[in-house]
């Protein structure tokens, strides 16, 4: 082959590979001075363009070359959080716009949660995440526990197990919101079926999230016979309430009242916010409490129980009323409080914090990537975090009239 021809072919290959890599990226970022609606629109494009994994929304994206040939490799343990946030976001958005394109996106995200169940091959067992790959990806070794499995029900996929109480909350919150304000009749039925199997399996295992090996997962304990966090009592009650509402099945109502009558979960949940010692306050836990209370307090109509849930909310508000908006979900806490109590607590500072919401920066980072021979190779690449909470906050605020469309 002539040298000239060879060089041309090499150049063409280079151009093709480069285009392949960059074609997978949405690259337009908003500026901090843009109005909120523009920031949300651009971050939405970034999330759908760069974080979309067959409908599941990835919390962390590493671009090639560190992600090898795909941009979705990153730590995936928490991807049910942004997935449920985007599902809720598009559900609220559809409820406002009635645009079928928004509903279709919500449907696709919901289908990904169904796939998280299907990929495990066990009815009601939901994975944390999945990847379409035959071979283990490099980050499985270094970014999470050895809880990845090859799928037997979906050959060519791998999935991450050890589902936790917070992802459990993501599921009933996201799917519950979707069912409530977005899903059509067909999807309502699918959503009910998913929660029936998922929450039903937890009940069957004595209120424990159990993994493929039959053991309780590291953070999957709602069991009345085992010591568990007060927050987990709250999450379990909320899950049962939502599932009863959606499925209409009496077993979920019976389980709800059994945990209250026999095991006093209604009392136990009151202290799910740890206020003192102050360094134990945890906004991560608050997020799960906020999602649980948001679903539970709107669905419960027993005044005695509502009073106890309000006591829990009050303990959170003790901290939230002065909270610094260092994380997008902390802004959402305040909105949830307003929706649940109808108190007008939106000061100018809080409104400004909402207007200033931001997603993420794309950063360069050096990754130490394990090789097949056991060595490690340093590769510099780019990574993105998630803007799903910000986008959910926006459409939630718009839906409840907290956020003005002109902001």
């Amino acid at each position, binding site marked *: 082959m002539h040298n000239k021809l060879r060089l041309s072919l090499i150049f063409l290959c280079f151009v093709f590979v480069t285009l392949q890599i960059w074609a997978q990226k949405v690259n337009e970022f908003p500026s901090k001075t843009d109005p909120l609606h523009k920031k949300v629109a651009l971050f939405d494009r970034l999330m759908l363009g760069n974080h979309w994994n067959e409908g599941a929304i990835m919390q962390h994206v590493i671009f090639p070359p560190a992600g090898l040939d795909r941009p979705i490799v990153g730590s995936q343990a928490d991807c049910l959080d942004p997935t449920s946030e985007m599902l809720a976001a598009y559900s609220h958005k559809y409820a406002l716009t009635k645009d079928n394109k928004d509903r279709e996106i919500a449907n696709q995200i919901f289908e990904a949660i169904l796939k998280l169940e299907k990929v495990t091959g066990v009815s009601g067992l939901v994975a944390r995440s999945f990847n379409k790959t035959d071979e283990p990806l490099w980050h499985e070794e270094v970014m999470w526990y050895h809880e990845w499995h090859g799928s037997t029900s979906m050959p060519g996929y791998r999935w991450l197990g050890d589902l936790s109480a917070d992802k459990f909350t993501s599921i009933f919150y996201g799917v519950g919101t979707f069912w409530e304000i977005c899903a059509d009749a067909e999807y309502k039925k699918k959503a009910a079926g998913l929660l029936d199997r998922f929450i039903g399996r937890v009940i069957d295992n004595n209120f424990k999230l159990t993994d493929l090996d039959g053991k309780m997962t590291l953070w999957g304990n709602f069991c009345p016979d*085992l010591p568990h966090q007060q927050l987990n009592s709250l999450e379990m009650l909320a899950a049962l309430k939502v599932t009863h509402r959606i499925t209409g099945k009496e077993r979920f109502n019976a389980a709800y009242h059994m945990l209250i009558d026999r095991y006093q979960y209604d009392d136990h949940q009151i202290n799910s916010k740890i206020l003192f010692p102050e360094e134990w306050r945890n906004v991560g836990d608050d997020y799960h409490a906020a999602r649980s209370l948001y679903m539970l307090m709107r669905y419960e109509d027993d005044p005695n129980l509502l009073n106890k849930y309000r006591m829990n909310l009050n303990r959170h508000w003790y901290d939230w009323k002065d909270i610094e908006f260092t994380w997008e979900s902390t802004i959402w806490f305040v909105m949830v409080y307003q929706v649940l109590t109808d108190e007008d607590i939106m000061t100018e500072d809080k409104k400004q914090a909402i207007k200033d919401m931001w997603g993420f920066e794309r950063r360069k980072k050096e990754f130490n990537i394990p090789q097949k021979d056991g060595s490690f190779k340093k590769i510099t690449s780019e990574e993105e975090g998630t803007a799903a909470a910000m986008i959910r906050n926006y459409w939630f605020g718009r839906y409840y009239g907290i956020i003005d469309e002109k902001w």
Partner: protein
Amino acid sequence: MKIFYTALIILIGTSPNFSQDLNEPPEGMVLVAEGGFIMGSKYGDHDEKPKQIAYTKAFFIDKYEISNTEFAKFDSSFKFPASKKDNAAIVTWSQADAYAKWAGKRLPTEKEWEKAARGIDGRVFPWGNTYDNTYVVWDQKSTRGTSIAKPASPYGCFDMAGGVWEWTADWYKPYPGNKTPMEQYGEKYKVMRGGSNFNNHSFIRTSQRYYLLPEKISNYPVGFRCVLDIEQK
């Protein structure tokens, strides 16, 4: 049933053992007396069943997990930040085993670990049956008995609930009489005990078992403490 267990344990636990009084624990260790104890649980995972009476000989066990400073005396290549000198050393099973041998000791069996943690009366936690956040080492920076309430186990061991998991010598196998199959049983995984600061409350129960590849601890924080056999007098 509870009364039966209690009566049995009192009988077994108070049976005479003349040798133990002759043995003063070495510095940093405590004595665990020979005899029976309640092992396992009927409420936990299926691998904790059946709840049973198990026996051990008398042995000494470390009061605390091996710290970074202690481990570095054995392995000078072991690096850690100066601020973490008292933290439990997080190591693979082979490293833990090698340290124990170097120190003239060994890793505890599951039975020994569980007895040292819960005593003879089948308690759920080292301090009793009631959960309390202040009893638990939730922070790996805060080891060496520095949980708020500083509870010791009945034999005087600290930090057996939370902080870091702890290696045992044993492969992950079913208890005698356990009929629930698990593909993980065998000689592939080692058992770790005690839970860490990164899991739910149930994992710090004294009977909780968890399995892990001995050389691939990944993100699991696993430390260890050692046991010393008591020579027959």
